[in-house]
């Protein structure tokens, strides 16, 4: 009944195929969900909402007068990824993070990929998050991106495409874990077995962090550095720290002395070995980066340089997840690994290339234009949905700062049935899997499925009205 009036649109639908038939790997969950009466469903949704509110699963929206903290909207219809699809995604993600980490090593050492003419030097030097002061500085285990959140979308044919890599401080994993907990509590009967668990993530993350401890310290002190309670991801920071049983600290809780970092405790100073920092490079250390930052620790960067403390992710990873650099990731994979990319990505036009610029300016109403160094869906133009004024505004921005803009064709990405007022409607979804780069590379089975709750919208960011779903990777 719930499924009877569900209509697939003229794009890839996760649940049904082009003939309107439920895909085999969705059958059991769809049947179980359809077996619920309207009242049962409504009641379960109420308990879900209550659960999220009580747990304090919130995020913060900047620039909204109605208050900043919101409950993260959740849709109970889980997204299902069959085992063979996941095998492909996992291999592609591991290949990608391997290439990105080699690229970062190279950029901060010999820069062979530039010397060999694969990536123009302007691309590197023009990236806002490139840190030339770190060229020649070694990081523990040569690991740069320890935690990566890569956004995937599916095109018209259901092909997974990489939309972007988040190699600085990717967030959202706490929702993956909380969504699963909530689903298990409220909809236990939906799980028919064979859904791969996600609950090992905190221990895997901790192992990843301990792996980079300086001087091979077998018992390192690992802390999580947060900008504080006003940050949009503070819920996640406290959640992860609690799950890993490590201290959560703010900049003012730390002090750098003689090239070492210490934590202020009630029993005096205690040395810190690894910092899982959820704070951007710019704010880490006022002596090196932004002078006006009160969030960081003066002297922290010096301790990093001396190799006495490890940061995860390392400083300067932003040069790899820059939207212009993104266009070169397939080339990196070919260069360092001599392989073709396993996962495709969205064609990208770079405004600083004269030919691409011409194309962009001529086709603005049909393109998505993004600022190279912004995240969270800020600073973006979606051509087909924009007003004339918005298009003209971006036209002048692109002309003024070509290095700072890229454009991509609008990908009509896949939709997934989503509960709207008691019935199902298709809404656009993406997927952000999380990859951990430690002793070995681990990909959390699943990831955060974000759903654009506004009808027709393709912006899934929580700050722009997106919600999320539980994501089920099937074991077989």
């Amino acid at each position, binding site marked *: 009944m719930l499924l009877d009036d569900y209509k697939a649109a003229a794009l890839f639908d996760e649940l049904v195929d082009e003939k309107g038939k439920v895909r085999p790997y969705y059958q059991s969950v769809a049947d179980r969900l359809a077996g619920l009466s309207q009242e049962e469903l409504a009641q379960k949704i109420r308990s879900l909402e209550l659960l999220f509110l009580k747990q304090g699963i919130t995020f913060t929206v900047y620039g909204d007068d109605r208050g900043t903290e919101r409950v993260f909207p959740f849709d109970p219809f889980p997204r299902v990824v069959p085992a063979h699809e996941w*095998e492909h995604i*996992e*291999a592609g993600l*591991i*290949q990608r993070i*391997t290439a990105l980490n*080699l*690229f970062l*090593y*190279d950029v901060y*050492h*010999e820069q*062979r*990929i530039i010397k*060999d003419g694969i990536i123009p030097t302007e691309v590197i030097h023009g990236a806002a998050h490139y840190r030339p002061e770190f060229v020649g500085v070694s990081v523990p285990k*040569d690991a740069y991106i320890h935690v990566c959140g890569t956004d995937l979308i599916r095109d018209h044919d259901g092909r997974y495409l990489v939309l972007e890599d988040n190699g600085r401080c990717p967030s959202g994993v706490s929702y993956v874990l909380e969504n699963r907990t909530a689903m298990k509590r409220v909809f236990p009967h939906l799980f028919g077995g064979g859904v791969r668990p996600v609950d090992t993530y905190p221990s895997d993350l901790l192992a990843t962090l301990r792996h980079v401890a300086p001087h091979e310290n077998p018992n390192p002190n690992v802390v999580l550095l947060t900008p504080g309670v006003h940050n949009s991801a503070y819920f996640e920071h406290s959640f992860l720290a609690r799950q890993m049983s490590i201290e959560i600290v703010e900049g003012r809780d730390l002090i750098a002395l003689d090239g070492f970092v210490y934590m202020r405790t009630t029993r005096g100073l205690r040395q810190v070995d690894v910092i899982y920092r959820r704070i951007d490079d710019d704010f880490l250390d006022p002596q090196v980066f932004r002078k006006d930052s009160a969030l960081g620790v003066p002297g922290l960067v010096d301790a990093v340089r001396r190799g006495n403390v490890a940061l995860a992710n390392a400083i300067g990873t932003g040069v790899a997840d820059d939207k212009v650099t993104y266009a070169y990731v397939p080339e990196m994979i070919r*260069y*360092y*690994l*001599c*392989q073709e990319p396993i996962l495709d990505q969205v064609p990208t036009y770079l405004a600083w290339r004269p030919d691409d610029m011409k194309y962009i300016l001529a086709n603005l109403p049909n393109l998505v234009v993004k600022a190279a160094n912004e995240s969270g869906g800020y600073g973006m133009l979606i051509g087909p949905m924009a007003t004339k004024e918005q298009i003209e505004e971006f036209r002048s921005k692109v002309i003024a700062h070509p290095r700072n803009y890229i454009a991509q064709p609008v990908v009509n990405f896949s939709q997934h049935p989503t509960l709207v007022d008691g019935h199902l409607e298709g809404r656009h979804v993406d997927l952000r899997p999380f990859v951990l780069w430690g002793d*070995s*590379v681990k990909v959390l089975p699943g990831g955060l499925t974000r759903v654009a709750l506004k009808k027709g919208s393709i912006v899934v960011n929580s700050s722009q009205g997106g919600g999320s779903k539980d994501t089920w990777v099937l074991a077989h």
Partner: protein
Amino acid sequence: MKLRILHRTEYRYALPVRNNNNELRVTPLDNARQRTILHLVRVLPAVKMRRYQDLYRNTVSFFEIDEAHKSLVIDVSSVVETSATPFEALPQDALLSDLAKPEVTESFQPYLQSDGPVQITPQIWRTAIDVKADRKEIVAVVKGLMDFVHETCRYVPGVTSVSTTTEEFFAKPQGVCQDFAHLLLALCRALGIPARYICGYVYDPKRGEVLGSHASHAWCEVWIPGYGWVGLDPTNRRPINEAYVASAIGRDYRDATPIRGSYWGTGDREMRVTVHVEAK
């Protein structure tokens, strides 16, 4: 069976070296018995990686580092799905006499030769004939030869080197999987059975039961008319099963060396190799 292989080789040089050229044969073969899901070769310092296929259709990855450096890390990670043919399913009635045909001897010439480390000495030849006795079926003979190698030789690391020949090994039968494999090759070839050298990895579920699982492993394949190549592991006295992942084929060790390199420099070199094979 889904196996994950991590093969890490680390070199530390006491003094900086340059012009470091390396050739790797570490890519799992793609054939009916194994399917590669993931394969990555990561080298630090970061290099431009190149690839080609050699005479034996092995995938060869190679790279060079011209600038001075003091360390080199080669990290190979693979995920492979394997299957295996039970030994009983092989054509038990294929005869040795089926091999004595010009089309066989011609097309398998490289795998019938006495060459390099695989020396078919008169003594090895006599032994092969003695072990064969009255048997005429290839499968039975090959199994007899494998049992013989396993019973005669002892697995002792550190006694032999990469250049030890079958003649030397047979005189003092203590060595590692590579020596076992070379000897079985020599015995098979002495009887006209085409036999080739395989380098790869083996999974040891109980840790400590399967010899050769802590490093690259080596075994043999023999050719059976009407069927094709069949794998045998003389070190562990068993046919190849789904715990095995092959990464290179050749006449002998020289063709299938996992990592071979040269560099310009003096001073000491330290090498550390670790291999982990786990079921996924």
